[in-house]
């Protein structure tokens, strides 16, 4: 198997074994040692049992993807080793390669010794760590103490990676900040015991001698976050005052996070009885002047469709984060897919205008969230920020450029004449945008309506007025499209990476793996062969820009995580472009770096270009 830069550590076990805690603590500790980290979790839709695993890949160079092999495997149970015949997993031993390290609890494991011998025979170091005994011998006597085996494993990992234990301890303290001091003390105690055990019995297994940073610094410049977190922070920065959400994986993380920080930022968070209530409540709040955000996944979004059309017609701003999971209907709730693009694009009857932004990483989400609220307010339309589980829940390492600021633009009308008994809420203007005063703030009244209407919002079935109002709404989208084109340095309707003649087009979370693959292959090939074009807006669609970019492509490849090629269909519809190659994945798992690199090599071979 092809090896890439950096190391990959994987922890596996049942849900409830502290998989997330250990992986996220390790990830943050690595960032504080100066590394770039990319971590992603695979888990099942259940609370206890099953099989979850968390990959933590790190490098001294930027990375944005995962690989198919494991350098260090921390197995918290036997399923992680040999699987259970595929009911939950086939196990991860096959992913270990020459020089890998396996950490497992020999005293606890029932896996036959032959299996371990086979592993050792493949030049894989086996670190037998009595995690269960370490926990039993600690001061913890309660029933739930076994969850702390992860800390023993993390301690051994810290030894192997030569981490500064003080950094790890600090991250643990922060992670368990809200809990009792005793919880922190016990976890740290077990961490240290795991570390000491490894240092005593596996002294030579230290695989790293030097880090980009050998001690923590107060001037930390790297951020580690997943997409959902950055969507919420972007929303807070944009001044969201009302957040409304019904829990649905993989968007639930946003609700959990905003609940935690709502008081500090004076945000009202409501969890109503359904997605129907969510969006209609949100439209009410937004109409009444509060910046309002909602989040859901494909099924919840389907329920919201009628109200999205209402928002288009009534010209009510709303920001919706749609985080897709895998499959139609309930699908695979905790797995990834880019399968909702067309549902979002066509949500609503007739011409339900809306903007759709497709961020590709957490930093983009941070800015796109802020942009979304501005666009929603100014153009009085629904703005959907759409991404998938892979971006929602994977942790990326990034820096935040200091000079990049998205100033708040509410587009609201401040002072208005109140001569008329009824304010012209839908006044026809050149750019399509009607002045919108906040309701109840001035001595005027106005109508907001789901029916076709005249400039006063009075319902009408007049054929001329119907056309004028339809054109007015279309005009808003034209104005928005112009604004985006004129300010591409802010909105980035399209981003380009590299400058090869082999052009890869994609959108959303595939950005990370494609960038890593392009960089890797161009370097291997010794010249710029591949270029990556990231489509970041689905509506209004950047047709001119994309047509221009694709015109010179000798070979075009489109890559997306769905079975039907939804972006491909959209591009064909908008600019009539046929791709030479298409790579689609829809098994619920994100593209790995190995998969993309292998695929691109196949393309080169097919095109008769020698690869290294």
């Amino acid at each position, binding site marked *: 198997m092809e090896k890439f830069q950096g190391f990959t550590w994987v922890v596996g076990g049942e849900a409830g074994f502290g998989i997330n805690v250990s992986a996220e603590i390790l990830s943050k500790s690595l960032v*504080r040692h100066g590394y770039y980290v990319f971590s992603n979790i695979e888990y099942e839709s259940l609370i206890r049992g099953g099989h979850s695993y968390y990959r933590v890949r790190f490098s001294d160079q930027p990375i944005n993807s995962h690989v198919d092999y494991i350098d260090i495997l921390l197995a918290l149970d036997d399923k992680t080793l040999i699987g259970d015949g595929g009911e939950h997993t086939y196990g991860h031993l096959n992913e270990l390669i020459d020089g890998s390290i396996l950490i497992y609890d020999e005293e606890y494991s029932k896996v036959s010794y032959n299996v371990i011998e086979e592993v050792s025979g493949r030049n894989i170091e086996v670190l037998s760590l009595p995690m269960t005994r370490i926990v039993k011998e600690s001061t913890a006597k309660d029933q739930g103490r076994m969850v702390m085996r992860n800390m023993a494993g993390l301690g051994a990992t810290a030894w192997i990676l030569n981490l500064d234990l003080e950094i790890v301890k600090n991250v643990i303290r*922060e992670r368990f900040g809200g809990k009792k001091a005793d919880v922190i003390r016990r976890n740290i105690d077990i961490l240290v015991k795991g570390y000491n055990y490894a240092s005593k019995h596996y002294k030579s297994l230290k695989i790293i001698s030097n880090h980009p940073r050998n001690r923590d610094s107060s001037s*930390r*410049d*790297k*951020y*580690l976050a997943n997409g959902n*977190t950055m969507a919420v*922070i972007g929303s*807070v*920065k944009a*001044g969201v*005052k*009302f957040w409304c959400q019904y829990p649905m994986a993989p968007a639930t993380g946003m609700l959990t996070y905003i609940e935690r*920080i709502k008081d*500090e*930022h*004076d*945000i*009202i968070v*409501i969890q*109503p*009885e*359904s997605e*129907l*209530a969510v969006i*209609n*409540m949100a*439209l*009410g*709040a*937004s*109409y*009444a*002047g*509060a*910046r*309002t955000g909602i989040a859901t996944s494909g099924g919840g979004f389907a329920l919201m469709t009628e*109200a999205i059309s*209402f928002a288009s017609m*009534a010209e009510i701003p709303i920001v919706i984060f749609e985080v897709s999971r895998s499959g139609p209907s309930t699908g695979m709730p905790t797995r990834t897919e880019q399968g909702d693009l067309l549902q979002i694009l066509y949500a609503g009857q007739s011409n339900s205008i809306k903007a759709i932004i497709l961020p590709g990483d957490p930093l983009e989400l941070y800015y796109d969230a802020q942009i979304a609220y501005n666009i929603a307010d100014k153009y009085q339309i629904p703005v959907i920020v759409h991404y998938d589980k892979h971006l929602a829940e994977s942790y990326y390492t990034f820096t*935040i450029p200091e000079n990049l600021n998205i100033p*708040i633009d*509410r587009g609201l009308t401040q002072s208005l004449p109140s001569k008329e*008994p*009824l304010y012209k809420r839908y006044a026809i203007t050149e750019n399509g945008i009607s002045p919108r005063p*906040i*309701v*109840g703030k001035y*001595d005027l*009244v*106005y*109508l*907001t*309506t*789901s*029916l076709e209407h005249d400039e*006063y919002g*009075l*319902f009408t079935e007049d054929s001329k007025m119907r056309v004028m109002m339809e054109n007015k709404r279309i005009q808003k989208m034209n104005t928005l499209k112009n604004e985006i084109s004129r300010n591409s340095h802010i909105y980035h309707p399209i981003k380009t990476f590299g400058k090869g003649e082999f052009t890869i087009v994609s959108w959303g979370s595939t950005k990370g793996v494609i960038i890593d693959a392009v960089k890797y292959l161009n370097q291997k090939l010794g010249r710029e062969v591949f270029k990556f074009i990231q489509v970041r807006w689905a509506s209004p669609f950047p047709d001119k820009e994309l047509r221009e970019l694709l015109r010179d492509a000798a070979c075009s490849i489109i890559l997306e995580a769905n079975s039907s090629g939804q972006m491909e269909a959209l591009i064909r519809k908008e600019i009539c472009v046929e791709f030479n190659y298409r790579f689609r994945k829809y098994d619920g798992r994100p593209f790995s770096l190995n998969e993309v690199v292998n695929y691109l090599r196949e393309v080169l071979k097919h095109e008769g270009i020698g690869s290294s």
Partner: protein
Amino acid sequence: MKASEVVDIQDYEGVRKPTWCPGCGNYAILNAIKTALAELNIPPSRTVLVSGIGCGSRLPYFIRANGVHSLHGRPIAVAMGIKLVRNDLNVIVVAGDGDTYGIGTSHFIHVFRLNVGITLLIQNNGVFGLTRGQPSPTAPLGFKGNLYREFNPLLHALASGATFVARVWTGDFQKMKEIFKEAIKHSYIEKRGTSFVDIIQLCITYYPERNHEFFTKYFKDRVFYVDELSDYDITNYKLAIEYASMEFNDKIPMGIFYHSDKLYSLEEMIIGKKVPPGLQDISNIDVSRLLMSLT
């Protein structure tokens, strides 16, 4: 408009004439709402009427106030959203029995659980008028071949935790208007949460008779007001349940069945004396602590 100014009913005079059938119960409801708001001295600019879909939900076009003509079944949700960020506004839902007791029932239950300070004025005529006369959830068994029993809105409201539950009918304008005022006071002025008024009304075209009697006569002969009974106590929940359970037979109970002022509304508990979230300044928000927690 300054608070000291006196609101006149003319201030609420809409620019468009109603499109309802002559003799429709909606005319009385519209007048009662305008009169109640003027008598409570609430200016039109502070009032938001949120409606659903149907003849009666066109009402916001025929009155001069802020109006949101929303989707079928969703006005309660929209109104809750408005009130939760603007506790300074008088938010009233005007919607029908199809909206409220049919397609939007979930909101009708949960609004009481959340106890958001909005007033629900629900036009209950037993039929879907705008779609030409199909039975609504409150149509009695047998009405136009209706196979289902009728929905009891009052019992549902009481079971869901409503703090103000009333029933009026369009044949008694004075009582209807007075109860509208009490309902608006409960939600908007006294900030006690959701108030609910079920309005029995005539659909002159599709439901002119009940049990072979002209609609108005049928009710006139049977209606009595529970809150006018000497031994009735509107704070007694069990009594309210008992009277709300009465089927429409020889006697039809109306009036305020239940009124509890023990709670404050949800938005009062969340917002209280703070600037309403919908009016807060958001020009300079600092997220540096949140970002620092990611390093």
